[in-house]
């Protein structure tokens, strides 16, 4: 009797295991995701995970500014996962108050005293650079 109970519990365990193993393939289209990812290079995988637009913006920012600069970013919600990824990929450039650069991401122009457009990706995505060298 005890052995039967143990075996029934094990059978229930295996069924639950199988359900939660397979379910994401239907609910989250995991097969599509994996089959896309498996073909990509490491760089393309980073873009896939980060989001193509945001990753292109990060590359644009990194390539446009001098290394170890300070910046602030507008258009990415503070402390969101996108903001964390942005900070991670931008390092050793550091987010700081009164920065050398302000990155504008998919946001209509925000007037910034003491800054002027330095480099432009498109009309809503661009970089401002500090003009007043005394501050």
């Amino acid at each position: 009797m005890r052995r039967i109970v143990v075996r029934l519990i094990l059978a229930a365990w295996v069924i639950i295991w199988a359900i939660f193993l397979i379910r994401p393939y239907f609910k989250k289209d995991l097969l599509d995701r994996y089959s896309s990812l498996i073909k990509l290079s490491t760089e393309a995988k980073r873009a896939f995970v980060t989001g193509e637009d945001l990753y292109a913006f990060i590359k644009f920012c990194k390539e446009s500014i001098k290394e170890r600069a300070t910046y602030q970013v507008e258009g990415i919600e503070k402390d969101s996962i996108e903001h964390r990824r942005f900070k991670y990929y931008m390092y050793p450039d550091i987010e700081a108050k009164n920065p050398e650069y302000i990155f504008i991401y998919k946001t209509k122009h925000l007037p910034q005293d003491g800054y002027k457009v330095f480099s432009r990706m498109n009309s809503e995505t661009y970089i401002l650079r500090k003009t007043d060298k005394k501050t």
Partner: protein
Amino acid sequence: MRTFFLAEKAALIYCVGLGLLTMEMAVLSLIGIKFSVFSLSVCIVPIIAAAVLIPPRRWDSPKPFSVIEKFFIGAIAFEVLYAFFRTLIMPMEGYDAIAIYALKAKIFYLAGAIPHDFLTALKGFVPHIEYPLLIPLAETSFYTFLGSLNDLAVKVIFPLYYLSLLVVFYSVLKRFLNRKQSLLFTFLLATLPQVTDFATNGYADLPFAFYCSSAIFYLYLWMREKQKSFIILSFILSILAMWTKTEGLIFALINAVIAVIYSVKERSSATMGYAYAALSVLMVGAYLFIGRSLGLAVNSDFVSSKASILTRLTTGFERIPAILYEYQIQFFGPKRWNLIWILFIAGLIIGFRKIFSKNLMPVTASIILVLLGYTGVYMISCSPQGIGWHLSTSGSRLFLHFVPLVALWLALMFKELNLDL
């Protein structure tokens, strides 16, 4: 003495070796030596070589595997391979994985050390700067040996912890149970969705679960087999748990309590038990003292309130319904835990008379103390986002820390109740 099985020894060399390597890296930074393949290898290679030379304990004479044993082995192997696949198919993407651990690792790698002004200059830039550094430094060591910052390949660290946890868990069980029973409970642990998810996502929780659970496993083995190497290993693992996550402080104190309870009962090995407890308390004190000297909070989620811990604990009683509600979500959530917590509750009821028997007492007491400890933490928490947010974002992770202990408890109860498959 042949104390450890070969696979168990390999798993311990990986996890303990990596942990000690990260401690060496902290010391190198303090004395101003930059990270390099040479500077990282100089201390750790002799330790690993010495560990490799210790002759392993032998398994029982091999018998052919039964069908059910083959099924367990196949399922465990599948989960391990699948964990490696899920890990290596995408770069770091989880919130804490990238915001805390990967960012710190990148800072350390690019600086070639822990920058001397890390705690001051980067305080506003790096979230949770006070968190222990084992995981970021482990990632940094990987980059150093690799020679480049590959945030995809570095994730291999995590499924290796998962594999190590399963190997150590099986090896511990194999000392008390037969092969089929040991495989059964290793299968249960290996197939928990929460365990497999955290084996792949770059968070510190599964490595932490390895260190804190293994510290209790080897403390328990010392109580049963009285070999000094087990209690020494338990102490090292306990320190590495503290070096991985702050919750390690709770586990170190729990281990100290368990060692004292045991030593009061078993006078023959009391000296070792008391020494273990005293050193554990000393290490917790040292951790808190160093943190305070550096101006760091134990955890920045707990510093916003100006009230004393005692006052917060008293007012924290109002939170108990919310905390219990979160616990029941975990207990009865098969999506993350399959049936393990339901089996644990069933085991408590069916085996009530045996839960404090000689063989089960240390594990039962550890689980109760961990639950009480974590409940106390929630009671005094003053996370800026509120207790609801804190519970919902951390509850399942805290349960992950001691689920291997619960799996061990189930296996021991299985034996106590004379059950078989």
